[in-house]
């Protein structure tokens, strides 16, 4: 297949699978979802091979050139994001298959979660749960993500972003009535973010008569409308990406969802906003003398790292803690933007590599960690950190996965998170940004504090088994998936070199 065919396949396969899953209904949805994951991953791998081999891939839908037609375009950055989404997403799908499947099979015997934990866990009624809807909705979200990464113009980005937001809200709402408030808040904020973004897009269109990123980049000049557009679009994206101080919707939404959903949202969906911010400030406005924009983003990133870390430290329950860790980790990605935008040759490329490597490591590690939380919830019936005594002996696979994922999130060797953090610190030192260096190091110490605190529970002697006899067990197969994802986060330590080469593909001169 040619690169163009792979491009179309990448965009189309998840959407087709979503439709198939919806038509297949309760019984066949999982099969459609797994098949879709497999084919979608194959398509992304094919595309990545084409990009590595032949540079940037582009397809004009229906043969119409921009600004009339729709262009699909895959450069190095987009390919890296697609790969991350496909691989981590497939892992999440595998987990979901066993997780929801097991819930159906054993639902009748499962001990209901204590009432105050309903928000954290799976809904207690199992008979008419719409669990299977996870599949079409997740595939839709994946399709939206793929289309977003491949879009070359601002309006398509808006459409895909909106689609992604709606799918994500639906995913949160899957948790049932307990999650309704979180889902509603998420919906309203997602809409607000999109509205701000589209306002900015319209301003740009009015000024330059095109929405194609390449054309806009060539035409855009420093002006009031461009500045206003940049501000509106950035603010909208900040809301959607849950950047500090607009992050407040994320912890309840991610903490309330079922484990695979939390994993998908935290690991993959929020990265779309970061990707767009990077596109805007490195690509579209990258040539303009607006250094203040990326610098402001960097400052917000620093705030996010510290605030997210402190908040995570204060959490008593596992899932909200992991969710706050996402707030902090998104901060690292933003910190890299001003460093990547300064155009100082090696340092800038290093910062972009750092950001993408950190994003990918976070995706793998955070997905693994939320999935671990799901297994712990199944075994303990709650996720209060203080009461997870002895989970190392009880769930050794999960404990291993949790430990490796934690190492990557803190940025300790031998993990992808470590190499990413090393690169980020190196870029900051080269740029002389000592404040940034201090924040990055302080942030990793904060992460270490809350993650090692949770991890140390694994070594405490297990408490009394819960009253009522049978100890609930977490099935093994999903735990293997979370371990595989954690190992992926470790293995990412080795991809720095190839990733740097990939990201150099299609960089705007």
């Amino acid at each position, binding site marked *: 297949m040619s690169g163009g065919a792979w491009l179309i396949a990448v965009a189309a396969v998840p959407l087709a699978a979503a439709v198939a899953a919806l038509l297949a209904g309760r019984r066949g949805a999982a099969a459609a979802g797994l098949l879709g994951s497999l084919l979608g991953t194959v398509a992304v791998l094919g595309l990545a091979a084409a990009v590595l081999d032949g540079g940037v891939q582009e397809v004009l839908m229906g043969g119409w050139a921009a600004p009339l037609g729709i262009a699909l375009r895959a450069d190095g950055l987009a390919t890296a994001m697609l790969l991350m989404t496909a691989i981590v997403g497939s892992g999440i799908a595998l987990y979901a298959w066993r997780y929801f499947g097991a819930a159906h099979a054993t639902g009748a015997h499962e001990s209901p979660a204590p009432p105050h934990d309903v928000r954290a866990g799976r809904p207690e009624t199992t008979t008419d749960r719409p669990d299977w809807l996870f599949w079409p909705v997740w595939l839709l979200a994946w399709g939206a993500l793929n289309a977003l990464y491949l879009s070359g113009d601002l309006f398509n980005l808006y459409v895909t972003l909106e689609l992604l937001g709606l799918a994500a809200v639906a995913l949160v709402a899957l948790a049932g009535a307990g999650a309704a408030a979180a889902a509603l808040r998420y919906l309203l904020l997602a809409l607000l973010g999109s509205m701000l973004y589209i306002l900015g897009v319209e301003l740009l269109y009015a000024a330059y008569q095109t929405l194609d990123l390449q054309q806009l980049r060539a035409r855009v000049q420093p002006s009031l409308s461009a500045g206003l557009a940049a501000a509106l679009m950035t603010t909208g994206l900040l809301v959607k990406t849950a950047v500090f101080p607009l992050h407040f919707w994320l912890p309840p939404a991610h903490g309330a969802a079922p484990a695979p959903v939390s994993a998908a949202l935290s690991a993959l969906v929020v990265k779309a906003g970061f990707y767009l911010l990077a596109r805007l400030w490195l690509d579209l406005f990258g040539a303009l003398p607006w250094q203040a924009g990326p610098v402001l983003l960097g400052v917000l990133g620093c705030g996010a790292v510290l605030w997210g870390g402190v908040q995570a430290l204060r959490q008593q329950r596992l899932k909200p803690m992991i969710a706050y860790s996402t707030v902090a980790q998104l901060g690292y990605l933003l910190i890299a933007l001003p460093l990547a935008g300064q155009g100082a040759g090696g340092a800038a490329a290093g910062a972009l590599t750092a950001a993408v490597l950190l994003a990918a490591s976070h995706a793998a590690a955070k997905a693994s960690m939320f999935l671990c939380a799901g297994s712990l919830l199944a075994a303990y019936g709650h996720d209060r950190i203080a009461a997870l005594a002895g989970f190392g002996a009880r769930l050794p696979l999960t404990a*291993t996965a949790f430990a490796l994922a934690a*190492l990557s999130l803190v940025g*300790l060797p031998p993990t992808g998170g470590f190499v990413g953090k090393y*690169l980020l610190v190196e870029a900051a*030192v080269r740029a002389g940004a000592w404040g940034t260096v201090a924040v990055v*190091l302080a942030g990793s*110490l904060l992460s270490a504090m809350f993650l090692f605190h949770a991890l140390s529970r694994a*070594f405490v002697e297990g408490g009394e088994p819960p009253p009522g006899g049978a100890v609930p067990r977490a099935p093994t197969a999903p735990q293997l998936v979370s371990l595989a994802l954690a190992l992926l986060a470790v293995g990412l330590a080795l991809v*720095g*070199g190839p990733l740097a080469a990939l990201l150099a593909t299609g960089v705007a001169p």
Partner: protein
Amino acid sequence: MTNVSWVPVAVVASSLLPGLVIFALPEHRRSLRTALNLAGAAAKLVFVLVMLWNVGRFQDYEARLALLPGLDLVLRADEWSLLFLTLSALLWVVTTVYAVGYLEDSPHRSRFFGFFSLCVSATAGIALAGNLFTLFVFYEILTLVTYPLVIHRGTPAALAAGRSYLMYTLPSGALLLLAVVGAQVLTGPQDFTGGGYLKPFADGRAGMLVLLFAALIIGFGVKAALVPLHGWLPRAMVAPAPVSALLHAVAVVKAGAFAILRVVYEVFGIEFAATLGVLTPLAAAAALTIVYGSWRALAQDELKKRLAYSTVSQVSYIVLGAAVLGPVSTTGAVVHLVHQGLMKITLFFSAGNYAETLGVHHVSEMDGIGRRMPLTTAAFTVGALGMIGVPPVAGFVSKLYLGAGAAQAGQWWVIGVLALSSLLNALYFLPILHRAWFRPARGPWPEEHGRGLDARPMLLVPVLLTALFSLGVGVFAAMPWSPLDWARLIVRREYVGG
């Protein structure tokens, strides 16, 4: 000479792979676990001996993996790495036997031995690290794999000790990361070099280099337990005795001291460090640590705590030797790296034997213990006399070279520190020996388990072996292949024309 790249990797893997398998073993597979452990330990020893014999004569050993352009992981066998590697490989065998005996019926043994093996792999990585980045990576890994051993018992005290360990090591790791990145930005990719590699980059950057030195020393000084960065070490005493032995003699503290030696000699170069003026503060810190550690040891009644403060003091002999310019002093520092390990492991094994056999944890309970456990106490006596510096035990050789080196460099105050410390050593060790050998037992032992005359063979043989080593390296110090001989080899590498 041909370069063989798989051997250094195999040295690390020989404990890593058994460790990973051991994690997966069920608790009751005791003999398989022990077999795996010993097979790994034996394999590592063989690889190390092969390298010792061949290196620089028939073959070179270097493995290189590019993580990023300009950022390599390098494992390389040179004189330094082989010295540390031989020590840790040898002591790993002994400690494994001891640990198998010590933990006979305790829970979570698979987890324990898994992390134990990872710990030794990380130490091998530190020994073989060919550049600062690799050293840092394995140093951090060592922190991480030791933490589960410190909190192994899962008690609140163990968890608190683990927390304290992380509170010292993780921030120092962050500082080290910054220092390693700074060095990389300053010099580009550089491997460790005899005589150091920073001198050509010094123009107009003296202040920055002093900062870099300080950051590296503080970072590595935490594991080497330099005062005031030593607080975690006495608290980590709650861990089981084999872990203490590992922390104090084989891996952790040693890794810190070894890393400091690498920084002083192979990054900065001792002569360049002297011109920067950073050696005097380092020597002062080491001297303070030596005296303070000995002073605190005096007041400890708990045997393991007394030994822990003794370690704080003794490890800084190495740092002190490194901070005094001159080949004789360097010889003393290098040789003490080995000697301290052998003597301290003997002392900790003995303490473990007392605790396991008789339930004796405190110095005040040791009256007459020499008659109850004569072999263990004999070993303890060898270690204690060595620490004081009585000939012909190994510690005497170290102190001799350190003192002669200080005299050669004209730093007479160092001799004063050594003398004061020896006096304090005698003050906290001799009363123990007196109690053990010359006082009658005060009644029944707190918790008697042993049936025979002394500890179980699995506990006794290792301690007798290490006591013999401690004597042997002292008596045969002048022989070829002794640690002292090897230290002279290292000195030739570091001093031009030396």
